[in-house]
Structures are given as structure tokens and as C-alpha cells.
């Protein structure tokens, strides 16, 4: 019978609460495979799917489940020497070089790994006289995995999955989603570490277009291939930007904007019981992403950690991931986002906290935040 063998990632590092992670992973897989027919079985250290149709779709979806390292398309056989001999006896007239690799998850099996590999190799050679054994660089590899459920799985290779930890196992976080290349990548990377995402988007209608907002919703939809659903909180930032523009020095526009964004992010995160803020910042990429700028913007966040998974990545590295997760083409659509409206000619690169606070004191920050929060629109994006 055909089966898909699923290998879980870092869960083996978990001790007593490993079953909690495993159950979460199984539940995430079931959610991801909604609408497909299949049977899922847990066996020591592995998951097995059988009785399925639509193999390609099933595999495509499994590769997007966080917590899985790899999967294999396998043949499921009763774990007896006779069944295996009968199965390998079906291979006839193969050519080239080969080897057999055996792994015994079930140590009760009567032959050890070496003995079984040797026995199966002999059977193959009997039926394929032109085949030769090559243990180092064989053209064909027969992998045999004997599990405790009384089944053996024969396969020839692995399909890589995302790795990481089961979605939701790390709690929830609020991703600042701008529409650029970096923030969806940041969201993906944190989701991979088990973080369930909600997103926060600031728009500046009428300075920004409806297309710019739609683009962010499209990005959220693309992330849903991995995270199933994303609640997007959309906030109008227009009044805040106008107030900063009218009252503060132009070079502090971006710094103060980001401080207010962070305050709003923390307010929403706390309200929604989300344990962290995630941004797509990368050290030194632009003026607002210098260490000094981040110090000044982080300063307003009271309690929550701010995770910046792209911090040490080059743009090229970020773009590569963006392409892999299919957000790149959307991110580069040419619509102005709110950060490019009122963009000063010379933004401050190394802002000082005291000077920033002095500039900011010209604003009634809490009132601006309240006004902005009143414009909140929540859009639930699903796969």
C-alpha cells in the first residue's frame, strides 16, 4: 500500500511535554489537509499517512506545515522478512549501481539492520544480474524503515519540508506588515518557530492608494499557505503623519512615526493576548533601521519583546526567502506605502532619545494614538 512517511523536526529535543507538541502538530496537519481524504497514524517518532488520493496536493500542503523536516513517498509492507523478500523480489532487470539502507525503529525485528540489508540486496541482485552494489555513490537507493507499528516502509528519498516548530506552539505575535519585501519574510520566519501571526498594517489614505492596502491583504493571503489564517488589523495613519509633519522637524518624521506605530502595535498586541511584536527590520538597511533608530523606537515598547528575524540578513537573502514563499512578486508592486508619504530628504540616521522625545513632546501622542485606534478595521484572511 502507498504511504507517506512524515518526519518531525526538533520535537525530539522536547522532554516531558513532547506529546503536547506532537498533538499540536497532528492537529495542524489535519487543518492543513482539510478537504482531502486520508488516514493519519502516529507511530513512534514518525507520522504515517495512507489511504489517500490526490498525492501531489497532499505533499504540496505537507511541505508547508511547520514542524516537519521531511516526508517520503513510501510503500507500506508488513514488517516480516517474508513480506520484504516478496516485495523486493518484484524488482527485475534493473541496471546501474545500488545499495540498501535499513533502519530498525523496532529492535524486536528478528534480523539486525546489516543482515536485512544484505538479504534484500541478494534478492535484488538475483533478479537484476546487470546491477552492481555501490555503497558510496549508488544510482539507486532502497531505504527500508521498520517501525513499531508492525510495518516496514520502503522509499528512495526525502522531500524537504519547512522545519521549525508547530504553528501556535510558541504563542501568538503581531507582525508589522508594510507591503514591502521584508515584513512578510519576517512573519514567515517567526511562524516557522511556532508563532501564530496576526498582522498590523498602517495606511495613509488618501495619500496611499486602495491598491496599496489590497497588496498587504494579498501578502497576508500568501502567508496563509503556511499559517492558515491571519487577522489583519488595518489602521489609518493619516492624521498621525499630518500631525508630525505639521509640528516636528522633518528629519524626525520617520523616527517619531515608528515610535507611534510601535505604541499602537503594543496596545493591539496586549489587547489580543499576543506575546511579541515582529518587524522586518534589517540592520542598517535604511535610516530607520540603524541600531540607534531601533533603540529609540524600541524604547516606547513597555513590556513585549520585539523580534526582528531579518536583522542579520542581507537584502539578497531576504529576497531569496520572499521568492521561495511566493511573496516577492506582490511585494514589488509599485504602490506607495505609508512610510514613503511625507518622506523627508534627510532623515536622522542616529537619533538621540532626548532629542526625539523633545520633538515628540510637541504632539499629543496619546490623543493621536486614540484617534488612529478608532480607525481600526479588522480583516480575517484565510487560506
Amino acid at each position, binding site marked *: 500500500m502507498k504511504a507517506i512517511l512524515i518526519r518531525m523536526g526538533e520535537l525530539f529535543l522536547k522532554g516531558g511535554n513532547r506529546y503536547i507538541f506532537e498533538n499540536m502538530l497532528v492537529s495542524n496537519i489535519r487543518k492543513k489537509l482539510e478537504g482531502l481524504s486520508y488516514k493519519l497514524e502516529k507511530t513512534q517518532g514518525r507520522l504515517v499517512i495512507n489511504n489517500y488520493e490526490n498525492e501531489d496536493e497532499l505533499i504540496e500542503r505537507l511541505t508547508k506545515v511547520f514542524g516537519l523536516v521531511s516526508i517520503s513517498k513510501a510503500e507500506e509492507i508488513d514488517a516480516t522478512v517474508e513480506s520484504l523478500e516478496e516485495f523486493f523480489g518484484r524488482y527485475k532487470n534493473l541496471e546501474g549501481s545500488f545499495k540498501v539502507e535499513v533502519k530498525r525503529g523496532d529492535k524486536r525485528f528478528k534480523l539486525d539492520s546489516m543482515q536485512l540489508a544484505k538479504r534484500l540486496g541478494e534478492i535484488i541482485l538475483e533478479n537484476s544480474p546487470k546491477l552492481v552494489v555501490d555503497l558510496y555513490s549508488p544510482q539507486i537507493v532502497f531505504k527500508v524503515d521498520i517501525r513499531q507499528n508492525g510495518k516496514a516502509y520502503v522509499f528512495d528519498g526525502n522531500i524537504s519540508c519547512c522545519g521549525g516548530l508547530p504553528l501556535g506552539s510558541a504563542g501568538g505575535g503581531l507582525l508589522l506588515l508594510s507591503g514591502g519585501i521584508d515584513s512578510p519574510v519576517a512573519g514567515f520566519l517567526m511562524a516557522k518557530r511556532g508563532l501564530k501571526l496576526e498582522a498590523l498594517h498602517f495606511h495613509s*489614505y*488618501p*495619500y496611499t*492608494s486602495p491598491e496599496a492596502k489590497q497588496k498587504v491583504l494579498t501578502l497576508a493571503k500568501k502567508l496563509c499557505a503556511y499559517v492558515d489564517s491571519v487577522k489583519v488589523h488595518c489602521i489609518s495613519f493619516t492624521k498621525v503623519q*499630518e500631525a508630525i*509633519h*505639521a509640528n516636528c522637524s522633518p528629519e524626525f518624521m520617520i523616527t517619531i512615526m515608528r515610535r507611534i506605530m510601535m505604541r499602537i502595535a503594543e496596545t493591539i498586541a496586549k489587547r489580543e493576548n499576543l506575546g511579541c511584536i515582529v518587524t522586518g527590520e534589517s540592520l542598517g538597511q535604511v535610516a530607520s533601521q540603524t541600531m540607534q533608530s531601533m533603540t529609540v523606537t524600541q524604547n516606547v515598547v513597555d513590556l513585549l519583546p520585539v523580534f526582528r528575524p531579518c536583522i542579520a540578513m542581507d537584502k539578497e537573502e531576504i529576497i531569496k526567502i520572499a521568492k521561495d514563499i511566493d511573496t516577492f512578486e506582490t511585494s514589488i508592486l*509599485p504602490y506607495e506605502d505609508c512610510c514613503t508619504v*511625507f518622506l523627508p530628504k534627510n532623515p536622522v540616521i542616529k537619533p538621540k532619545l532626548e532629542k526625539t522625545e523633545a520633538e515628540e513632546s510637541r504632539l499629543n501622542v496619546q490623543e493621536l494614538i486614540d484617534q488612529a485606534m478608532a480607525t481600526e478595521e479588522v480583516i480575517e484572511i484565510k487560506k
Partner: protein
Amino acid sequence: MIYLDNAATTKMSENALKTYNDYASANFFNPSAPYKQAFKVAMEIDDARQQLKKMLGAKKGDIIFTSGATEANNLAIKGSEREGNWEYVFSMGEHPSVMETAKAMQREGKNVFFIPLKKSGEANLDELEKYLSPKTRFVSCMLASNITGAVNDIKLLSSIVRKHCPHAVIHVDAVQAFKKIEFSVDDLDIDLLSISGHKFHGPKGCGALYVKNKASLKNIVYGGGQEYGIRSGTENVAGIMSMLAAANEIDTAKNFEHVLKLKKAFIDVIQSNSVKVIEGKNPYIVMLLFDGVNGETLVRMLEDEVIVAKGSACSSKKAGNYVLENMGYSRDQVKGAVRVSFSADQTQAEVIKAAKMIKAKYLELYERTK
């Protein structure tokens, strides 16, 4: 809501819509079919061709129905292209459906030349001779601009072209001119002319190309041989008949006088030191360059009360406005560009009200962003 984006598209007239419904349901037959109901539709389409030709003031030639002006313009250009060392000339004010086709030909290695624009928006015909030679195969120049009120002197253009280029075919994009300003193809002495139904209260998805000598035009698609084999594909019967119905309702001269008054009333209100008004002989379009603001933002601030455009709708996805830049305006000036385009069914009171709102919102935006 006052709609001042009629150069982008117009609302279908009731009669056009009724005609559309009739030919989409009761008279839905395929004109190529061999029974009498279909034959009747085929005859009506042929009659539509004759009526349209008459409206265009053409004694000779034919009408080829297309899916709109973009296809008509592409057919005119690509259908006139020939092997060999020929030269192709375009004005720098052309719509993207002409401009992009010209650029594609240039990329393919064809000899393509562009006639510069005057600051007022018209093609600079004083320089036309520079771009012409006996090898000129094709000259394309729009009659009325889609960006400004500029109207090109096509009669002068064709007289110059005829003098220097014995093999040239002259094409005119008349999308913003047909049923708005009076002209006749015979008088203009041209070979090809494009129109589009939805710009004069007809349906979208239907246009036409007038062809003086169809033997000189190659087909660019292959199929069942409809439209003299030049544009295969089952005729868009409802679109064609509805476009004709819309055209038949319009009294061009009377509307022109009315819209001229609308334009004057509008400009009287909007005129100020902080806006550059670009107008021309076509009263239907006025281009406004507002100082110190982003035109696109202004368009969105107005959207619940007055609908206007930023440059041209067909190119609003791209940054800048190449026609205004080709006319010699700076990036900064173009940033504040807002296009206003009228319809003959509007009143002076409406456009005055709209002008006041635009002015007020402009001042508000200016204050908010200065």
C-alpha cells in the same frame, strides 16, 4: 457625485443600453450563420458600417470593428508594418496603445522616430519634415489628446507627409475626438482612424478602425475571416449596434458649443496662481497642474463628491505622466496633475460646483502637507 472623468470612460446612454440588450438577447444570432435570422443581423452590421463611415466623412474605404481602440491602434500599426528598411513616425503625445506598440517595434530593430510636443501639447509640426523621408512607411498622430485639450492639425500634417513620403500611410487615433469635435477623414486626407465606443456613451469592448484601402492592411490575427479577413472573430453584434446607437444620438456641433461653455465656467472658478491650467481646442478635457500637492491624493480626497483623474486612466498604474513630461513640464509639476473631462449632459451649475470643491480640497490638502 459629479463625474468629471469622461475621457476615461462614459456612462452608456439609455438607448445604447437598450440596443445592447436587444442584440444580446432577442437578436443574438451569429451573423456568419446561414439562416435568415442571422442574415438579418449581418445586414444590420453592414448597415452600421455604412452609417459609421458616413459619420466619419469618408467616401471611400471600410470600417473594421474591433474590441476597442487599443486593438484598432495595434491593428493600424502592426497591420501597416512591412519588411525592409522602412521608417515609422509617431507623435510623442500618443496614448500607450500606440506608444508602447511603437516602442516594441523599436526594440525589434525597426526605424522609429518621435515627433516632439509643444508646451501646449500639440505635436510640433514645424519639425515634422526632419522625421520624414521617402522611406517613411507609417505616420501616427492623434487628433485630440487624452491628456490635455490639445488638437493636432492633422490636415497640415497629412499635406506635409504626402509631399515627402509617397509610400506613407497616415493613422489617426480619434478616440477623444470622435463625436466631440467635428472632422472628416476625407478632409484630413488620412488612411486609418481609430475610435472607441465607450468614450461616447457606448459600450466598452467595442471600437472600430476606418481603413481607406484595406488591401494595404495586413491581418494580425487569423481565424474565420470576418471583417474582410483583417480581423477574424465573431462580431460583437451587441457592442457594434449599441455603439452605433450611441453615436447616432450625438449632435457634435451642438454639444461642442455647450461643453465650451462648461469649460469656460469651470476655468473661471478654478483659475488661481497655484494652478497651471492647460487647455486647448478640445473643450472636453482640461489638465490642471496644482502646485505643491500630489494629484493622486487630491483625486482620492475628492472621490465621494467629484470624480476626476490623475493624468490618463490607462497609464495611472505607472509613475509620472510621460505626455506632460514630453510637453516640457517637470516631474514636480506633473506630480500635481489632475485631469478634468466633461460630458455634454452636464450643466454649468454642476461643473461650477465641482470646480469649487476641487479648489477647496486642493487648499485643504496644500495646508495639510505644506
